């Protein structure tokens, strides 16, 4: 009996010693990291960011667990990130809406991007203009010509007025001197795809990731892409820029932490993000799931965000003034 209890005591001491381990070594991260995902589970952003986190945690050496806090066009989740403890154990994902829609429309009272610092941007999906494969519109010129002939008749889908897929078309319509009929499908890109398939709308303006399933199934064709340069995956698809319209649009997915996280920790997070982004696994995962690989570091993201806000807020102001968008 005595030996058993002695053995037991020994086990206890040893395990206690092991459990104290983190006190001695103080390398960040020492515990699991919480990742706030501001969109619904199973959605496009959720799927992509969860995949990224799976590879990211291998670089960081700690588990990352994702919590979905959806609502208010991603505002609620990001808001929670803003008010989280700045200890480096809470990170969050941001998308276009978190940067533009939520602050511009004032969806949440205390929401301000100044409360965050960016770690990195890990995907950038250019916006594309898509048509049904059987439709009469084969090129961008067809579309512009048709819109010139019948102003306000050509129907283009988006997922919400003033939102991420509506503004590019406003941009194009101003530059080309035409007018489209903008149809919102609040159910998301799934509904947009369906409407395009059923020929309910003539065109769809969406992320290249959203268009991917239809393009792969040869049910739809991309007429134009709104990136700076042609994409390697779609070498035949022209950019709007080369067609003479200075319209570069896309949706990004970034990682951020609360403002006061100390620089050393942010550097560890950023370095790991860079390594993850460069990894083969992540690249091949993205390729199979719609592409959009990019890497922009924290400072670069901050600059990009400021530029984006400046450009889009001005456009939104005009739209609100003209009554096309409600604020």
């Amino acid at each position: 009996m005595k030996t058993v209890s002695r053995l037991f005591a020994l086990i206890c001491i040893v395990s206690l010693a092991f459990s104290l381990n983190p006190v001695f070594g103080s390398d960040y991260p020492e515990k699991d990291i919480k990742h706030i995902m501001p969109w619904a589970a199973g959605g496009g952003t959720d799927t992509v960011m969860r995949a990224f986190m799976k590879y990211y945690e291998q670089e960081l050496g700690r588990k990352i667990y994702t919590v979905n806090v959806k609502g208010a066009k991603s505002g609620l989740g990001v808001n929670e990130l803003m008010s989280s403890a700045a200890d480096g154990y809470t990170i969050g994902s941001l998308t276009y809406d978190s940067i533009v829609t939520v602050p511009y429309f004032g969806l949440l009272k205390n929401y301000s991007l100044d409360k965050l610092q960016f770690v990195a941007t890990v995907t950038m999906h250019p916006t594309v203009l898509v048509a049904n494969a059987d439709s009469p519109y084969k090129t961008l010129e067809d579309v512009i010509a048709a819109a010139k002939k019948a102003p306000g008749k050509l129907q283009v889908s988006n997922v919400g007025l003033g939102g991420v897929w509506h503004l590019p078309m406003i941009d194009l319509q101003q530059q080309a001197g035409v007018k489209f009929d903008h149809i919102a499908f609040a159910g998301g890109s799934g509904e947009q795809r369906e409407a395009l398939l059923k020929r309910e709308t003539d065109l769809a303006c969406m992320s290249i990731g959203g268009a991917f399933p239809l393009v792969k199934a040869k049910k739809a064709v991309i007429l134009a892409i709104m990136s700076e340069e042609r994409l390697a995956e779609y070498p035949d698809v022209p950019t709007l820029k080369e067609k003479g319209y200075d319209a570069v649009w896309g949706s990004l997915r970034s990682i951020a932490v609360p403002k006061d996280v100390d620089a050393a920790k942010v550097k560890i997070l950023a370095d790991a993000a860079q390594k993850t982004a460069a990894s083969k696994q992540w690249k091949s995962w993205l390729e199979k799931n719609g592409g959009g690989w990019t890497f922009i570091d924290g400072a670069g993201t901050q600059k990009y965000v400021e530029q984006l806000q400046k450009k889009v807020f001005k456009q939104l102001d005009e739209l609100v003034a003209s009554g096309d968008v409600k604020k």
Partner: protein
Amino acid sequence: MSFEYFKIFFESWLIVYLAMGYFIGFFFGAVPGLTATLAISLLLPLTFGMEVLAALVTCVGIFVGGIYGGGVTGILINIPGAPAAAITVLEGYQLTQQGKADRALSHSSFSSMIGGMIGALFTIFLIQYVSEFSLYFKTPDKFSLILMAIVVSMLINSKDMMKGIIATLLGLMLAAIGIDTFDAVPRMSFGIENIREGVQLLTIVVGTFAIAEIFNQLASIPLRAKDILEKFNANQNKFDFKPRREELKEIGFWSYVRSSVIGFLTGILPGAGAAMAALLAYAVSKGFSKRKNLFGKGSIEGIAAAETANNAMCPGAIIPMLTFGIPGDAVTALILGVFTLHGLVPGPMLMIEQADTVGPMLIAFLITPVLIVISLFLFGRYYIKIPLVNRQLLYPFIAFTAMIGLYAATFSLVQLVHAAIIGFVIFLLSARNYPTVPFLLGFILGPIFENSLRTSMALSGGDLTIFLRSPFSLGLLILTAIMIYFLGIRLPKMLQEQENESNN
């Protein structure tokens, strides 16, 4: 439908998930006050971490088990476990009083199996065609279909039409809270940050089915075991569950087919539900029967018709959900929730892109009915124990699980508060005979109702005739009008007359 989908059940754990789902559904269906909807909503947070196929198959088991389970307690002690079982109870408890509970149980499960399997076969053969057809089914048509679902469920589930309308509108109003999906403007939030995100489906389900039911139980006098056994007539009833040849002959082959078709078609019709399927099949069978005098006094034919139909309804109900993304009732709405959680979007593309997920799920509808009969032969003699479960212990446990599940799914304490408030309000309303099903369906269908209306309006430039110009939409609107006439005007009058007659 390939044989592969069959094999997958027996090569993996899927069959275990299916059986587990079935028994959970059966238990929740059989215990009065618990529902299959509640069972699925308790399970929903768990499905985050499950393989999508396992989650779906479990839901199918719960759905079918719940519908069947509702009849069992009804037959034994005259308390229907679920509204779908009302007809089965009417006939079944008569048999129990005559000491023939085993006959009632035998035919309720045998017919459930036949109905379920025929319904599943119909679905498997038709889904591809409906799915192709759905490519022609545009936004205005969707609007009319959702409108019909809302109206029909309101008509069927409410005794007092005014209260039904109020309940439906309450559901629609709750759904409108939150940020406008088209314009990014907060609506009906009264400046409260916490409800800017709107009220969530899971919160409503937990409030309506778990919390409200607990208040209900607190307010009612529990049945004692002695009374239950007395009601069951324990001394007289035996347990010989084999359906006899002469009984099957009495029911007749065509009766099964007829009831299956009725049930299946009622299932496709969103909003109608299992109770409607059973009632219709029962009425039709009575019309065809040679022994009309037995109806209402313990007719096996009546049980067979009702149970065949309400089980054939289940696979039918999945069709509009898979092809149009329009759930017809609470259970299919939650199954739709599982779909979206895993990033599967219903619609015409689903059958092309996700055949490997949908296929086995449909096969599950074919396998579960067999479980019904197997479980009767294995456990049938213990069914009487189910209503003996101590519900005073059960309910706090369920409330606890529901709240934890809700928290796990949303990580939000606010949602728990919402669920408690909604639960209390629903309890007060249902005590005053306001129906809960139209309320829930109003809430579930509200957002897609609004979206399809507003998108249709955008497409037509504000022209309301868009709903009359499409043949499908026009047909559905006319059908809705016919439903309103028959269910809302004719039926109450007929019931009134019948009542007057019996009073004289």
